[in-house]
């Protein structure tokens, strides 16, 4: 779960990391009042979960009320690479003497947390890693011991920070590591971590991703999900406990098990089609769940044909067939369906489906055959007889 900048900064502040005080607003009038309370000059920052805000015109400096009105009016509602700006973060503009980069993340290969630090902050970190790999310090942390102040100071020194801010940077790193562990983050990144002319070390930006599996330990963080910018169908799926990811194509996909669904997307693409979604119905697909899944898939207007790919392990194929028949009783879809049922109770499942004689439903025996059929149907070509 990715957090907006201002939400990340709230978590930073909770763990002693210094951030500029500011306010999150959603209207121009709120922006004007917030700026008055904060004191000019202020910075207005678009709150979206996508990089390149500055280049898109989503970050502006304002010296007075007229400028706040102008910029807030422009930025609110702006579309930044598909993300609409609903919220602005306004904070006191900072004077900057130096810009650093700091991050804590999980190194899956080493199975340890990794601290990354560079004195070349303010630019894209991939860029630093390519152009100045020697200026990007990477140090693993013993997850059972945590990040000590000594190790943090060593990282700051290795990163080449000015000697008078080694302590300040070390404190910031220790706090950032605490954010990562205490909040169950998968990523906690500051770019830039700035030094002010008064030699204060402060986080000017925040990029935090939280582990969705750990939210039971952090009920207060549940509210941080960016519902405004979530795809509407994805949001509905999440509420119904289904794993749905919207894609750009026109073939709706439903399967059971994440790996098999990913594989189904690939097989459809290889057959020349373009999947409209990822949807994992999970184990034990009862009729209600299948009906919900069908509704979700068809809520996307781009869908021209649908592929059901079920390999029953724990999931019983006859149950999926019953679910599909029940769903068709409620929904009456206008696009063709290709159904491939295999695995536990597959003979029964296929028999049920044949007996139901659903209009516009085709059956296939194998994944490859099903993919070819659905691609043909989506492009309006006829295939063999319906089930």
């Amino acid at each position, binding site marked *: 779960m990715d957090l907006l900048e201002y939400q990340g900064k709230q978590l930073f502040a909770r763990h002693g990391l210094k951030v500029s005080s500011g306010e999150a607003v959603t209207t121009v009038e709120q922006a004007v009042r917030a700026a008055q309370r904060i004191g000019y000059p202020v910075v207005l920052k678009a709150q979206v979960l996508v990089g390149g805000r500055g280049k898109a015109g989503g970050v502006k400096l304002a010296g007075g009320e007229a400028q706040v009105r102008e910029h807030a009016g422009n930025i609110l509602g702006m579309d930044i690479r598909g993300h609409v700006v609903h919220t602005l973060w306004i904070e006191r503009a900072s004077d900057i003497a130096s810009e650093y980069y700091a991050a804590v993340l999980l190194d899956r290969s080493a199975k340890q947390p990794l601290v990354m630090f560079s004195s070349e902050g303010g630019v894209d970190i991939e860029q630093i890693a390519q152009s100045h790999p020697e200026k990007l310090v990477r140090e693993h942390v013993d997850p059972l011991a945590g990040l000590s102040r000594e190790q943090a100071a060593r990282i700051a020194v290795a990163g080449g920070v000015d000697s008078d801010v080694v302590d300040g940077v070390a404190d910031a790193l220790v706090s950032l590591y605490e954010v990562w562990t205490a909040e169950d983050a998968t990523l906690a990144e500051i770019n830039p971590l700035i030094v002010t002319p008064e030699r204060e070390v402060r986080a000017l930006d925040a990029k935090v991703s939280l*582990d969705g599996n*750990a939210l039971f*330990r952090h009920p207060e963080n549940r509210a941080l999900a960016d519902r405004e910018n979530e795809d509407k169908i994805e949001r509905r799926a999440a509420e119904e406990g289904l794993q749905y990811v919207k894609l750009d194509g026109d073939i709706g996909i439903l399967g059971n098990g*994440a*790996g098999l669904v*990913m594989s189904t997307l690939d097989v459809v*693409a290889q057959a020349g089609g373009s999947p409209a979604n990822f949807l994992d119905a999970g184990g034990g697909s009862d009729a209600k769940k299948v009906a919900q899944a069908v509704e979700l898939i068809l809520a996307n207007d781009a869908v021209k044909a649908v592929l059901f790919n079920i*390999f029953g*392990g724990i999931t019983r194929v006859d149950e999926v067939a019953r679910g599909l028949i029940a769903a068709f009783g409620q929904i009456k879809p206008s696009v063709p369906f290709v159904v491939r049922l295999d695995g536990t109770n597959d003979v029964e499942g296929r028999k049920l489906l044949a007996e139901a004689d659903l209009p516009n439903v085709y059956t296939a025996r194998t994944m490859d055959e099903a993919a070819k059929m659905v691609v043909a149907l989506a492009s309006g070509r006829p295939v063999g007889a319906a089930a």
Partner: protein
Amino acid sequence: MAVLVDEHTRLAVAGMTGREGSFHTLNNRRYGTNVVGGVTPGKGGQDLEGIPVFDTWAQAAQQVQPNTAMIFVPPAFAADSILEAAAAGVALVVAITEGIPAQDELRVYNVLRRRYPGTRLIGPNCPGVLSPGKANVGIIPAAFFKQGNVGVVSRSGTLTYQIGNEIAQAGFGCSSIVGIGGDPVPGSSFVDVLELFQADGQTELMVMAGEIGGSAEEEAAEHIAAHMSKPVVAYIAGFTAPPGKQMGHAGAIISGTSGTAAAKAQALEEKGVRVGRTPTEVAHIAVEVLGGSAIAAP
């Protein structure tokens, strides 16, 4: 022979008294697995159709000497249950539980390595281990697999069943099927399990089913080239997955440029590992390799 579980397995199950836990425990016993006990705090002294329940792993270890633990408890309690089983001296822990926080997995992995190096963890968020004809520990539907000489290791459950079924339909069987799970910090990697298959007398070929995210497949490619003499056929799911989107499995997310299906397939092919583009093709290649060697042998 086979790997990890067989006729010598003595299984105890944490969470055996729950709905899922009891269903699959009895399923495993019906298959022939020797289930010696269960662990549910507060329910010690009860039994599940004759299988005794203990309050702690220490008591279970003392009373019924399990060498294998299966974890079915909810995510909030799973990490402690795994470590408790390890502390009681259980050599193999198979964690089925889905949804364990990544930092709990990180702690478990590092504690096991340091304090309990004699315990091997498979999973979490995995379907378990099946050695056809010998033992089933987990939720793999055994009906789709026959006994044979193909070792299967996979990050995904249903995809494993799909591939196993194709292999069986082609007339071949499996030595063991090992699900290592789709989470960011699995207890055992592809490399760990491939090493076991390499040393196993029954296994002649391995099928490895990977997916997007992480670098476990790339590490396996290096290991295969450097250390393995038996053939490996690979499959990677997720060629059409967009970057930054999580595809169901917590580990299946592409960040930046690494971890893509194309990069993984390339890494494997560069090391001479054949990669099937569909599950069906994987089974065909496996059969071709096995059939070829059978014909070549006098």
